[in-house]
């Protein structure tokens, strides 16, 4: 009898422990969403022309047809609505999409260094996009970027494969080669076509830039994020099953090959759409999932939503820095993400667990 009571007590304690963990997670999620909305609003106000937060809300209210919208000067309104808002929204969607892509790749390839940029997907997508934009290949831009990302992914994984397995180290090395090839191809095509400032354009594709963001960029990136991202977030449990490798996943009832290729295809689609509007922005997909695991734990049902929100927040911040530090000149945003991402990469490589990756 006493033992039963003790067990009950233990169970209650464990439940309240879990309850606390859940509350803590929801706290982080709500806090992150608030921070995202606030940061997005403030980011719109930052720039050469003075715009206040009130102008931003008034402009938004006006365009969305909300009642009681205050008057905004037409110039301010068009700066907010035509320039800065599309850029901030694109940054948010791209950051969220890349971070989500990284989380999925790290899970299904069991590679803590997996990321669309390091494994060459981003430069494959750039090459595809540039083929459409410069050479005028008659395919929709996101479709070409998707095909480029998919080709790069398949190439990287086939090169890395040895004896039926792919070690994280080999995957990164193969990704490096494919990324170089994609970057070289992108640069060559832009240089060869040579209209206007080709160096600037090459830089923007190789390092990523959100400078040209318009409402069509928003449409491409947000719709990809919503459609593909929703599918991925709904597969969270399946991603958990990969934690102990393929055999364990299969013995947990997962169709391993089918699931892996569907999810990697989704990642290629997501990365393709993001690169099509912003070029190859590095390290977002690598570092965000690692940072978020610290807050959410490794379970994907918690990891993925928070990764989406914080990925969006991270890239808005990085892009705001990129367009303001050398005002009026703009840095490619990839420089900022690399400055933050490379130290994190080094910490990962040097970590205790890294010995097992080679």
């Amino acid at each position, binding site marked *: 009898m006493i033992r*039963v009571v003790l*067990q009950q007590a233990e169970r209650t304690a464990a439940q309240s422990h879990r309850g606390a963990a859940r509350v803590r997670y929801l706290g982080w999620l709500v806090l992150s969403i608030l921070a995202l909305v606030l940061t997005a609003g403030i980011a719109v106000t930052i720039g050469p022309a003075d715009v206040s937060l009130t102008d931003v809300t008034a402009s938004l209210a006006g365009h969305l047809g909300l009642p009681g919208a205050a008057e905004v000067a037409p110039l301010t309104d068009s700066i907010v609505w035509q320039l800065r808002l599309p850029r901030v929204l694109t940054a948010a969607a791209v950051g969220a999409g890349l971070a989500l892509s990284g989380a999925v790749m790290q899970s299904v390839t069991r590679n803590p260094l997996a990321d669309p940029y390091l494994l060459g997907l981003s430069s494959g997508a750039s090459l595809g996009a540039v083929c459409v934009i410069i050479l005028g290949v008659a395919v929709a831009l996101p479709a070409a970027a998707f095909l480029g990302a998919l080709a790069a992914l398949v190439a990287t994984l086939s090169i890395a494969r040895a004896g039926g397995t792919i070690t994280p180290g080999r995957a990164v090395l193969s990704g490096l080669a494919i990324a170089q090839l994609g970057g070289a191809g992108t640069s060559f095509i832009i240089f060869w076509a040579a209209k206007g400032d080709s160096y600037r354009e090459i830089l923007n594709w190789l390092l990523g830039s959100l400078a040209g963001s318009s409402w069509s960029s928003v449409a491409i990136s947000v719709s990809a994020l919503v459609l593909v991202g929703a599918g991925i977030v709904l597969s*969270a449990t399946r991603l958990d099953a990969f*934690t*102990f490798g393929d055999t*364990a996943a*299969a*013995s*947990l009832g*997962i169709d391993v090959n089918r699931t892996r290729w569907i999810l990697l295809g989704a990642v290629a689609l997501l990365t393709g759409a993001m690169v099509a509007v912003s070029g190859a922005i590095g390290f977002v997909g690598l570092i965000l999932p690692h940072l978020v695991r610290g807050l959410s734990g490794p379970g994907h049902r918690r990891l993925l939503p928070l990764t989406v929100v914080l990925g969006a927040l991270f890239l808005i911040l990085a892009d705001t820095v990129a367009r303001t530090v050398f005002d009026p000149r703009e840095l490619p945003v990839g420089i900022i993400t690399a400055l933050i991402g490379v130290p994190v990469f080094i910490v990962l490589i040097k970590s205790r667990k890294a010995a097992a990756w080679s």
Partner: protein
Amino acid sequence: MVVILDRVSFRINGTPILTDVSAVVPTGAVTGLLGPNGAGKSTLLRLIAGLETADAGGIELDGEHVGGARVGVRAGARAGVLSALSRRDTARRVALLEQNAAPSVDLTVREVVLLGRIPHRSRVLGSFGGDDDHRVAEESLAMVGGSNLADRAWHTLSGGEQQRAQIARALAQRPSLLLLDEPNNHLDVSAQLGLLGQVRGLCAGAGSGSSAAADSGLGTGTESGSGSKSGSGLTAIIALHDLNLAAAFCDQILLLHRGRLVAAGTPEEVLRPSTIAMVYGVDCDVIPHPRGGHPVIVFSPAGAPGFASALTDDRHGRGQA
């Protein structure tokens, strides 16, 4: 769970891995799967778990076919009668632990054990009201005596603790059949004995008396065999290298050699000097254990392959005696 292997054959790129393996594993039994490296032990476990499909022959779990049928005429005729289990259905009945599995990210033991609930969750979102999953996970951990490990991080565990956590994960699947592939790798002798003793206890517990505690609703069966569905006991098949451990802990032994089943039966029946000499090519004596009475295999270094070929004739002579 009764496992029936009916003339199972399996090839990889034309190379036969298993040939005509037929055997019956009764409910509640601990079966040792023995054989030299490359004999086909792991492959047989994967076939039973439905991770591979046999080229010929069939595997039945409690009368249901495992795996999609890549069938001959005979098995095809049977498939008409028996339902075939899907991957997911199989995962709710069979848990397989492979050798040396490690997680790709650092998890706590509780999180590791909860992975075992995946086959029981809804396909899309998974269950968000996970209290039931948590209860099963805690019970599973208690069954391997690992309740105190729940909040430990994986990389802080010893090899034996990691294996216990893994077995708890397998038990959280609520399987009727537990398949272990060389679970003793890298464990010290006390952890090896502890692990096999635990598996032994789980099978015996599920097969017999402890069902009363599970049914009464008291104590939620933390020390009983409630990990199995009521009415069908937990059955275990363990691939092992150590013949003495197999002799000590297994009810029956299946001995594989080059993909064929060369002996099956109780440890006394299978583990004979002649059989061991034929399969492993080593010289040994078998004596009864001074306390348990089960066979103990004592190896002679002089009979090691290449050590002294002159002994070969003598070895065969003794083996047949």
